[in-house]
């Protein structure tokens, strides 16, 4: 926490090293968070880049009130939710015959290499309701407390905890059934 405060202080004074340290420190967890929420590695990388660009643009006036990781994770979750909503709309348009038909296959210039384990986990995550997925990933990858996740999702702590537990139970059964196959 103090380490983050010092990094933010240096970042606000124009230190490139501080920005680089923040990026290196949280990049992996944020990528995993975005990948789990979107189930698309390319989109995940785009979102994390956008979040860091937004953060870099706030240099000189950024004020840290809670945890830096929590702040960045919230930014990623918000952008992921918006992207999911937009994708859902596009899908609905396609089904109605209003939009272009595009392939869902991975693009050849896929920049991030997702391991088998991550792919398996994200596929299992994709089967969970979005709120449960968000509660699990924000808690485990974003390091956020249930109270903070509750504020983000606009529900009580109890509901967030219940979403988290139910999600984990379901995820476990999905992954176990895949192993048994």
């Amino acid at each position: 926490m103090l380490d983050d405060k010092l990094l933010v202080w240096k970042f606000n004074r124009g230190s490139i090293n501080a920005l680089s340290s923040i990026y290196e420190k949280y990049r992996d967890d944020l990528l995993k968070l975005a990948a789990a929420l979107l189930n698309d590695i390319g989109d995940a990388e785009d979102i994390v880049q956008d979040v860091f660009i937004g953060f870099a643009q706030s240099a000189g006036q950024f004020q840290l009130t809670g945890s830096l990781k929590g702040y960045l994770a919230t930014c990623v979750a918000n952008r992921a939710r918006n992207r999911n909503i937009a994708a859902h709309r596009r899908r609905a348009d396609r089904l109605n015959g209003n939009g272009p038909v595009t392939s869902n296959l991975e693009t050849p210039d896929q920049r991030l290499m997702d391991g088998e384990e991550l792919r398996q986990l994200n596929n299992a995550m994709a089967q969970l309701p979005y709120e449960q997925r968000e509660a699990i990933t924000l808690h485990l990858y974003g390091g956020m407390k249930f109270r903070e996740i509750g504020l983000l999702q606009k529900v009580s702590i109890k509901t967030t905890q219940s979403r988290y537990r139910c999600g984990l139970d379901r995820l476990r059964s999905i992954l176990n059934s895949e192993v048994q196959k």
Partner: protein
Amino acid sequence: MRPTEDIEKRIKNVNIIIDAESNKRVFSNILQAFKKSKAKESTPTGLNIHRIILKSPISKLAAAVIIVAISFFVIHQGPDEQADTTTVSKATKSPVEMMTALSLERAFRRGGIKAVENQCEQALKLLGPRTASLSSQELLSEFNGS
């Protein structure tokens, strides 16, 4: 280990492999945005003091107090005294104006009977040397400034 802890650990420890080349490119984009924002910040805006005052509530209050104090001083001290001395000297252009009831009353308020006498003397000086015999008609025409 409980099954919940097991699955939590599995999710947390999942590996993500990042391509070094793309990572470099992403960071260079971030760096570009960072440098742009720094350049924007360093350009002179001309209203920096104004911004500082507006940002801090204490300096806001202090600025308001200073402004009120200055305006109070200006209203109650500065121009009133000056106006008294300057208006009289500006108003007393001709002997006629100096001898009006209003002008004499002002002089009395300013410095009592002595000020009235001074003003009369000044009016007489402006009129110049008098002849021994002066008709009332001549006196009136002279007072009228003709």
